[in-house]
């Protein structure tokens, strides 16, 4: 198979999740101003401190400008043309999955996510976010017995205001960046999780996000607090239906790991990347950051295959002594997708350690960039970092870039950086073909091998899904 044919093949894959669910939705008119923010807060029946917090964020946002330092180019969204709130009208709370709108369940089936099956087979508690309101929460009772809180952000504001108030904005301040400020002003829902002292969460906590209304931006907010000595593994999986106009997604995720706590946060993101000609697709501008206190550990694992434009840097602030930050990433771009992603490891405390493993895969006419910052502050004695950034190119029309920033203000630091760039060769494909493995399967095999170090970090059931997604986003239908 020639390079050109191979290229044609991988660029001809179609988005398999392009369908919409017809559920009555409650959408407010487009545009943003203080009244809209008050209306969102009112619709969500929020206390006044929350309304004021949002308004403060909004006022800060109006004074900010959209960042343009990332290696991406796109038409900037018109923020007055976006509707900032969309909730399915059916507002019932569900005790069991069977009560959920059958059409919605059908949507999940198309995605290959059977909630019932998940419940039965994997013991995963799933808090499903369709558009902006959580419609199903399971396993809550079981988690409740351990004192674990896992609910929608809206519910947390109502039921646990003291926890929300204490931690919201402590890791990602309102004015942190343009999109974080926008999110702080207009976020409609998301997930909240609190693990009490010394509790090891016995199951993976999982949320499936999904953008559903045409023209509705999604502003999710997630806050995970792991109290002293606790442990939680949190999974976030995303798919969005096919749309022609660009959809804006600007989420904020804050993780707080108190002394001796550990948080594993895994993401599989498969939003609509736009069609073969670069039309449509999701804009994904996300701020994800975790704070580690003494002896704490935060591990980010992400498999990014979707979105037209991605701008995302899950980061760790290693504040406490001996704290550990990890970042494992696979980012795939195809067709006209653009991704600028990486991490920031900020070493503040003594003996802090960080590891960065980034695997980029570029195909079609896409642009993939790794952008990472390792900053060792003056008081971070004996800090250590290891970074490995690999790129895999398919064809000769894509671009892969690495922007590593290293700032060291303490002489005892040890920082290592390794980078490689390789291509899937015709020789590799032919070798597989000769053993009876077709080209599609061969590409999946080679790509999965290349990503193994990252995929190994994912919980088992998620790793299987991620492998499938990698295959879907890179394979074309043969001949």
């Amino acid at each position, binding site marked *: 198979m020639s390079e050109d044919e191979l290229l044609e093949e991988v660029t001809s894959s179609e988005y398999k999740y392009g369908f919409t669910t017809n559920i009555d939705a409650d959408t407010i008119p487009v545009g943003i101003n203080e009244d809209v923010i008050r209306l969102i807060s009112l619709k969500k029946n929020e206390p006044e401190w929350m309304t004021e917090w949002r308004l403060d964020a909004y006022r800060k946002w109006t004074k900010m400008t959209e960042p343009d330092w990332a290696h991406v180019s796109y038409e900037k969204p018109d923020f007055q043309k976006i509707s900032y709130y969309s909730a399915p009208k059916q507002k019932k709370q569900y005790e069991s999955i069977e009560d959920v709108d059958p059409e919605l369940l059908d949507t999940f089936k198309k995605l290959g996510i059977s909630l019932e099956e998940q419940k039965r087979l994997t013991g995963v508690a799933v808090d499903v976010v369709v558009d902006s309101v959580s419609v199903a929460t399971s396993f809550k009772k079981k988690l409740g017995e351990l004192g674990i809180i896992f609910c929608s952000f809206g519910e947390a504001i109502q039921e646990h205001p003291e926890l929300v108030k204490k931690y919201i904005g402590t890791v990602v301040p309102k004015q942190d960046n343009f999109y974080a400020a926008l999110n702080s002003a207009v976020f409609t829902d998301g997930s909240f999780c609190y693990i009490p002292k010394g509790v090891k969460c016995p199951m993976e906590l999982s949320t499936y996000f999904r953008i559903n209304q045409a023209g509705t931006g999604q502003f999710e907010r997630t806050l995970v607090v792991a109290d002293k000595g606790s442990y939680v593994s949190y999974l976030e999986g995303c798919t969005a239906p096919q749309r022609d106009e660009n959809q804006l997604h600007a989420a904020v995720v804050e993780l707080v790991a108190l002394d001796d706590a550990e948080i594993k946060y895994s993401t599989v993101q498969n939003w609509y990347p736009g069609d073969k000609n670069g039309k449509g697709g999701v804009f994904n501008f996300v701020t994800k950051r975790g704070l580690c206190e003494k002896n704490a550990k935060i591990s980010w694992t992400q498999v990014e295959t979707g979105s037209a434009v991605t701008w995302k840097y899950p980061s760790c602030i290693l504040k406490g002594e001996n704290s550990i930050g990890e970042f494992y990433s696979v980012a795939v771009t195809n067709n006209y997708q653009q991704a600028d992603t990486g991490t920031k490891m900020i070493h503040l405390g003594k003996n802090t350690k960080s590891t960065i493993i980034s695997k980029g895969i570029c195909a079609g006419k896409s642009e993939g960039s790794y952008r990472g910052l390792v900053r060792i502050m003056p008081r971070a004695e004996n800090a250590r970092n290891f970074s490995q950034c690999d790129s895999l190119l398919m064809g000769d029309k894509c671009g892969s870039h690495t922007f590593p920033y290293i700032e060291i203000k303490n002489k005892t630091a040890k920082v290592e950086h390794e980078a490689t760039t390789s291509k899937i060769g015709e020789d590799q494909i032919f070798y597989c073909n000769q*053993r*009876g493995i*077709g080209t599609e399967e061969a590409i999946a095999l080679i790509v*999965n091998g*290349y990503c193994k170090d990252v995929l190994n970090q994912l919980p088992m059931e998620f790793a299987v899904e991620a492998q499938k997604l990698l295959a879907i986003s890179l394979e074309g239908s043969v001949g």
Partner: protein
Amino acid sequence: MLNIKDLKVSIEGKSILKGINLEVKPGEVHAIMGPNGSGKSTLSSVIAGREEYEVEDGSINFNNEDLLSLDPEERAHRGIFLSFQYPIEIPGVSVTNFIKTAINESRKAQGLDAMPASKMLKKMREKMRLLEMDQNFLSRSLNEGFSGGEKKRNEIFQMAMLEPKLAILDETDSGLDIDALRIVANGVNKLRTPENATIVITHYQRLLDYIVPDFVHVLYNGKIVKSGGKDLALELEDKGYDWVKKEADNLV
């Protein structure tokens, strides 16, 4: 089984094979020898289905099927196996995973279910013993960091697992020390049946001491210029290729 008729092949406009005729029957071992650049590896690549070669004329039939109309993986499914001269590395893909995928893809093509894991493992163990391979081999990334000898042994291991009808061993002896050569050759011999056939492509006679051919062909300048029994290999070892070259050149 394999029937090659007047095969003419070029790459980027340069003629490499200039009319090859070869017939291989079940149970036979054919050795193809010849000096560097004579087209030996091109022949094996074309049989396996490498696409950068242009077949200008002629035909290759395999069990009465036109091989040239099939994709490389389809040829593999029909039972053609090529032991590569330079096996390629596939980082992160374990030997086990690779073989499992290869076997199950072939089974799928034949309408069979995937081989049960326990059966697969048993077969792997058995074939590894045959080739005196270490267990930890299975979990290593395919060919990554393998020595030359390990790569070749891994090729024959895959051949043992896939049980092809026609195996083409392209310079399998290169990079092997004498002990490894003996083990690999013993493996190949034990895998011989009256139903399958082997084509051994080699530069030297050495391998043919262990894998004894029924026929020896000398490829020179894109043509088979001489065929004979196993004695021909010894004669070549003794006298070199020059006399065959002269004979061939005189004919032109």
